[in-house]
């Protein structure tokens, strides 16, 4: 079968279970395509020969009851993988070999999947374009010279470019949904506490969540079913009744109430985003949903709040990189000098910027004015959603205020880069689940996404809405394989 890499995860699983395909054939196909796709720079670390060996071993005695039987999968390089280098896109972790496995990836291997390699991302997941990675920027498979979004840019490019059937990313302020939107793929940010954070390189602990990035909603539901487990090793993991997301998936969303928040109609938003949103509303109606206008009055305060809370937590989390126990070390005249040079040479500019913002807002004399203030506004933002969810089951918005931009275009202007996450950040602050689905193209043919935000722990609900709408939208990604010579 020459078309292996164009198949959805669901179809590959079916073909392996029916013995129409072996794990080795599937793995080899994705390895071959990944080998031909170096120009995308999607991988930081490849583990191809091990992957082929594992696939051969799987085929010798295949357990076909597993959910991901012999499926090859590359993952974001923010997940610690035992004995496989994990860099978080940073020079400071260039030689770091974890002695343990993240819970989320362990869940994936337990269901029979095989690691292909580790995917590029913004350094410590801090970025919206994958340009902050120490390992170079990633090309968007949609067009040469276009960013794939970030921080899970390598993940989005790998799914969209068919280098992996499916993948996982992490989302602190939009890092799954924004790249999904930029590459014409589906990305789910689960409820805070749904997927374990154990073994994920920490950025902002009260916001970080892992989630699936896929070609379609059905695949996304299947992977969510695998990765979402209660985990004692993460003290913020929540023990709630998880659905069998893929089995319970339904296109019947008749009578579901979907809210349209007027505050998401932001100043300067391109007309094509507004048109896409209107089209989405129309599709939701056609699916039988009831559309209700709602208000989330504090929306415009979400980004400033995020840029206090996230850097504050990051500055604390990243204090561990001191050149002592692991990672890069610079030579210093004494201990303090060694720390300061290690962190100055080991971290990139954006990470240093955020550590310094975080340190400042937590420092004596500024804590109340910034950090405490932000925590209070965060409460108001969460209250807005609580209030809205008295009237609606889900909320529909655009995923991003624009389509993918050119590499280099926003690199020197941090604030304009941050504005990319205007529609995604409120969801992280409130700890809610949200999914981005591809819904159309702009004038250049670049994909645009719609976001469906759910109530806490109601992943099934938004997956169903996405599944129903996906059917109406009938999106086709325009991938030309331009990077394959």
């Amino acid at each position, binding site marked *: 079968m020459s078309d292996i890499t164009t198949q959805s995860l669901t179809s590959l699983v079916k073909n392996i279970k029916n013995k129409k395909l072996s794990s080795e054939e599937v793995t080899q196909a994705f390895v071959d395509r990944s080998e031909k796709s170096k120009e995308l720079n999607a991988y930081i670390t490849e583990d191809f020969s091990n992957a082929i060996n594992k696939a051969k071993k799987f085929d010798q005695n295949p357990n076909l009851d597993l959910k991901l039987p012999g499926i090859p999968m590359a993952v974001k390089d923010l997940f610690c993988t035992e004995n496989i280098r994990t860099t978080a896109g940073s020079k400071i972790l260039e030689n770091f070999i974890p002695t343990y496995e993240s819970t989320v990836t362990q869940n994936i291997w337990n269901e029979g999947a095989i690691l292909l390699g580790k995917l590029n991302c913004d350094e410590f997941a801090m970025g919206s374009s994958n340009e902050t990675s120490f390992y170079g920027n990633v090309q968007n498979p949609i067009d040469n010279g276009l960013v794939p979004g970030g921080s899970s840019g390598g993940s989005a490019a790998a799914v969209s470019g068919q280098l992996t059937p499916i993948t996982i990313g992490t989302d602190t302020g939009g890092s799954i949904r924004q790249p999904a939107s930029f590459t014409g793929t589906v990305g789910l940010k689960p409820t805070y506490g749904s997927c374990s954070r154990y073994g994920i390189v920490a950025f902002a602990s009260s916001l970080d969540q892992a989630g699936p990035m896929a070609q379609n909603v059905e695949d996304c539901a299947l992977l969510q079913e695998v990765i979402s487990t209660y985990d004692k090793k993460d003290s913020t993991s929540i023990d709630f009744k998880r659905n069998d997301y893929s089995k319970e998936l339904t296109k019947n969303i008749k009578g579901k109430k979907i809210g349209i928040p007027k505050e998401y109609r932001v100043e300067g938003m391109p007309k094509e985003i507004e048109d896409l949103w209107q089209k989405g509303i129309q599709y939701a109606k056609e699916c039988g949903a009831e559309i209700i206008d709602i208000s989330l009055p504090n929306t415009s305060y979400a980004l400033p709040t995020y840029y206090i809370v996230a850097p504050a937590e990051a500055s604390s989390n990243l204090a561990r990189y001191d050149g002592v126990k692991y990672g890069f070390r610079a030579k210093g005249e004494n201990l303090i000098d060694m720390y300061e040079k290690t962190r100055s040479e080991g971290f990139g500019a954006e990470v240093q910027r955020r550590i310094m913002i975080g340190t400042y807002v937590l420092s004596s004399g500024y804590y109340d004015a910034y950090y405490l203030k932000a925590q209070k*506004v965060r409460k108001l933002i969460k209250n807005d959603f609580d209030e809205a969810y008295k009237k609606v089951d889900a909320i529909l918005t655009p995923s991003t205020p624009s389509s993918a931009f050119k590499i280099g275009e926003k690199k020197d202007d941090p604030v304009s880069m941050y504005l990319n996450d205007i529609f995604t950040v409120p969801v992280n602050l409130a700890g809610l689940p949200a999914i981005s689905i591809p819904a159309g193209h702009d004038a250049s043919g670049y994909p645009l996404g719609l976001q469906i935000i759910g109530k806490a722990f109601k992943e099934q609900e938004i997956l169903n809405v996405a599944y129903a709408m996906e059917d109406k939208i009938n999106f086709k990604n325009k991938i030309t394989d331009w990077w394959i010579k």
Partner: protein
Amino acid sequence: MSIDLKTIKHISKLSRISVDEQKAEKLAGDLNSIFEFIEKLNELNTDKVEPLTSVAETTLKFRSDEVKSENIREQIIKNSPEDNEDFFVVPKVVE
């Protein structure tokens, strides 16, 4: 408000990130534009609002402090930038 070079030097010390003059000037510019954007929060009166520290409305669970990983000493030491067989090595701190 404005973040001057003196403040940048102070934050750099607290963050344990060394900063030369050129970098300090660039950072001052960046941080000023970011804080200008953050100042928007002052439009809101939050006197009577409780701060939100965690979205999960549960109390953190206790677990017993048990050793689960054994015999990983060698692997752990191997990750250190300047190792000997038994310890992490740092520049001399006591004369």
